[in-house]
C-alpha cells in the first residue's frame, strides 16, 4: 500500500490535450479535491469545446462558436486550472518527470494525463490535398465546412461512418447534391450491426443521398485551378463534386508518447487502470488503447462516453491513490437528419442477433448476443430500447444477472423494456 499511497503525493498534474477527455480530467481533479497545480495544455487556439455539435447544430448554423464551448470552459481561471491554449508539448521526459511546453516553460509533474486525441485519417491517393477537400475534426474544420456547405452545389463524402453520414444528412437538407462513397460493403461497417447498416442505407437513399458501396478510390481529380472537381474510382467512374469531405476515420495522436518511449500500438497502450508503461503517466480518450472487457483485447474507443468516463476514473485514481479497474458500458449516439442511431456495448464478438420492433415503422433495435449473454444493442429512433439495454449491460458488467438471455429475447412475449432496473442513484457514474 505504501507505493499506492505515494501515488497521491501532491504536485502538479499536467493534462496534455484540452478536448473533452482532458478538460473533464482537469475539472474532476479540482472537484475531487486536488489542491496542487493543474495544468491543461491544448494545441488549438480555442477554449475547450464539445465535438458532437460540430457535425450537427453548429454546421446547421443553430449554434455559434461560443455555444459549443464545454460548460465551465470559461471558468477555468476561477478554478485555478492553468490553461495553455495554442500550446503544444515539446517533450515528455520520463526520467526527470518533466513536461516541456512549446512556450519554453518546463513543469515537473507528479502525474501526467495524456489526452492527446486523434486526427482525421487522410487519403493516400493523388489529389488528397487539393483545394476543396475538407476534413471534420476541429472547430476550425467545422467553420470551413459550414461555409463550404452553404455555397457548394455538390458534395462527395468519402466514408460512410458516423461523421460522414451526419454531414451528408445536413448537406442534403440544405439542397446540396450529396453522394457518399463507402469502401466496405455496408455503411457504418466498423461501428454498427448489419441491420442498422441496411436501414441507414434505405433511409439516406430515401432522402435523396446517393450511396455507393465497395468503392475503391484511385484519385481526386482537379480542375485547371487546382481545385477538386471529382473523385475517380478504380473502375474508371468519375463522381463529380465541388467539395469532397474525407471522413475515413481518425488515427490516434501518439507521437509525443512514442518519443517519450511509452508503449504505443494503435494508440497509447494502457493497462486496466489506464496507466501507461511509465509510472504516473496515464492515457485516456481517443488516443488510448485499453483492455476492453467485451472484446477481450486492447482497443481504442472514440466517443464522448469514453472520454468522460475515463477522465473521471483517472482523476479519481490520482486523487485517491487507488487505481482500481476501469469498467464502463461503452455507448455512442449519432443523429443523421431524421435518423438517430444509439449503440451500446460492443458487438465485435457476437454470434447471434435478434431484431426487436418493426424496421418498417422507422424505430427498431437489434440486440447482439455472445452465447446467451447480451453484448450490445443498436437502437434506431428507439431511445427506450437503448436505455433498457444499457441498464442490462451495466448490470452484467457488475456481475448481476439481468435475466435477459438469447432464449428470452427470441420468445414471442419478449419485452425489452421489462428488463434493466433503475440504477441505484449512489452508483451513477455519469
Amino acid at each position: 500500500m505504501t507505493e499506492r499511497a505515494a501515488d497521491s503525493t501532491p504536485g502538479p498534474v499536467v493534462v496534455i490535450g484540452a478536448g473533452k477527455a482532458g478538460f473533464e480530467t482537469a475539472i474532476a481533479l479540482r472537484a475531487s479535491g486536488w489542491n496542487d497545480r493543474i495544468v491543461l495544455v491544448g494545441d488549438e487556439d480555442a477554449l475547450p469545446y464539445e465535438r458532437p455539435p460540430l457535425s450537427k447544430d453548429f454546421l446547421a448554423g443553430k449554434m455559434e462558436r461560443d455555444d459549443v464551448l464545454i460548460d465551465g470552459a470559461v471558468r477555468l481561471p476561477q478554478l485555478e486550472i492553468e490553461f495553455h491554449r495554442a500550446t503544444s508539448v515539446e517533450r515528455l521526459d520520463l526520467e526527470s518527470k518533466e513536461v516541456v511546453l512549446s512556450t519554453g516553460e518546463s513543469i515537473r509533474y507528479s502525474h501526467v494525463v495524456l489526452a492527446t486525441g486523434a486526427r482525421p485519417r487522410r487519403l493516400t491517393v493523388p489529389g488528397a490535398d487539393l483545394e476543396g477537400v475538407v476534413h471534420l475534426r476541429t472547430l476550425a474544420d467545422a467553420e470551413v465546412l459550414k461555409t463550404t456547405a452553404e455555397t457548394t452545389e455538390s458534395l462527395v463524402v468519402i466514408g460512410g461512418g458516423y461523421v460522414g453520414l451526419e454531414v451528408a444528412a445536413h448537406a442534403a437538407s440544405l439542397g446540396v447534391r450529396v453522394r457518399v462513397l463507402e469502401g466496405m460493403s455496408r455503411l457504418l461497417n466498423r461501428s454498427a450491426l448489419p441491420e442498422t447498416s441496411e436501414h441507414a442505407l434505405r433511409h439516406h437513399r430515401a432522402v435523396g443521398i446517393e450511396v455507393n458501396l465497395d468503392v475503391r478510390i484511385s484519385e481526386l481529380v482537379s480542375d485547371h485551378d487546382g481545385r477538386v472537381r471529382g473523385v475517380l474510382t478504380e473502375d474508371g467512374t468519375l463522381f463529380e463534386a465541388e467539395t469532397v469531405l474525407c471522413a475515413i476515420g481518425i488515427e490516434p495522436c501518439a507521437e509525443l508518447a512514442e518519443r517519450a518511449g511509452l508503449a504505443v500500438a494503435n494508440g497509447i497502450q494502457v493497462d486496466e487502470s489506464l496507466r501507461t508503461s511509465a509510472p504516473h503517466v496515464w492515457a485516456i480518450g481517443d488516443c488510448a488503447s485499453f483492455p476492453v472487457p467485451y472484446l477481450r483485447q486492447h482497443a481504442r474507443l472514440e466517443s464522448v462516453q469514453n472520454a468522460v468516463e475515463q477522465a473521471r476514473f483517472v482523476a479519481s485514481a490520482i486523487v485517491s491513490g487507488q487505481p482500481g479497474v476501469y469498467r464502463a458500458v461503452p455507448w455512442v449516439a449519432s443523429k443523421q437528419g431524421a435518423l438517430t442511431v444509439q449503440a451500446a456495448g460492443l458487438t465485435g464478438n457476437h454470434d447471434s442477433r435478434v431484431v426487436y420492433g418493426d424496421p418498417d415503422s422507422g424505430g427498431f433495435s437489434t440486440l447482439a448476443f455472445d452465447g446467451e449473454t447480451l453484448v450490445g444493442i443498436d437502437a434506431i429512433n428507439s431511445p427506450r430500447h437503448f436505455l433498457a439495454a444499457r441498464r442490462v449491460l451495466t448490470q452484467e458488467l457488475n456481475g448481476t444477472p439481468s435475466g435477459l438471455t438469447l432464449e428470452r429475447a427470441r420468445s414471442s412475449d419478449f419485452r425489452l423494456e421489462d428488463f434493466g432496473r433503475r440504477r441505484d442513484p449512489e452508483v451513477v457514474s455519469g
Partner: protein
Amino acid sequence: MHRIEVVEGKCIGAGNCVDVAEDYFDQGDDALVIVLKEQVPEGDVAEVERAVKACPVAALRLLGA
C-alpha cells in the same frame, strides 16, 4: 421552486437524465431530451440535480439551485 433549463444544441441523446429521473425527463424518437416538468419542488431537487450532473455534455441546468 427550481427550474430545469435545456441548453440548445448540446443534447446527444445519452439518456442519462431519463435513467436517473424519469418523472422529469423523457426522450423523443430522435433521442433528444424532453423535459416533462420544468418546475422542481424542494423534495425532488436532489434527484433532478443528480440527473443534471449525469449529463455527459452539460445539456441541462437546474436554475435556482
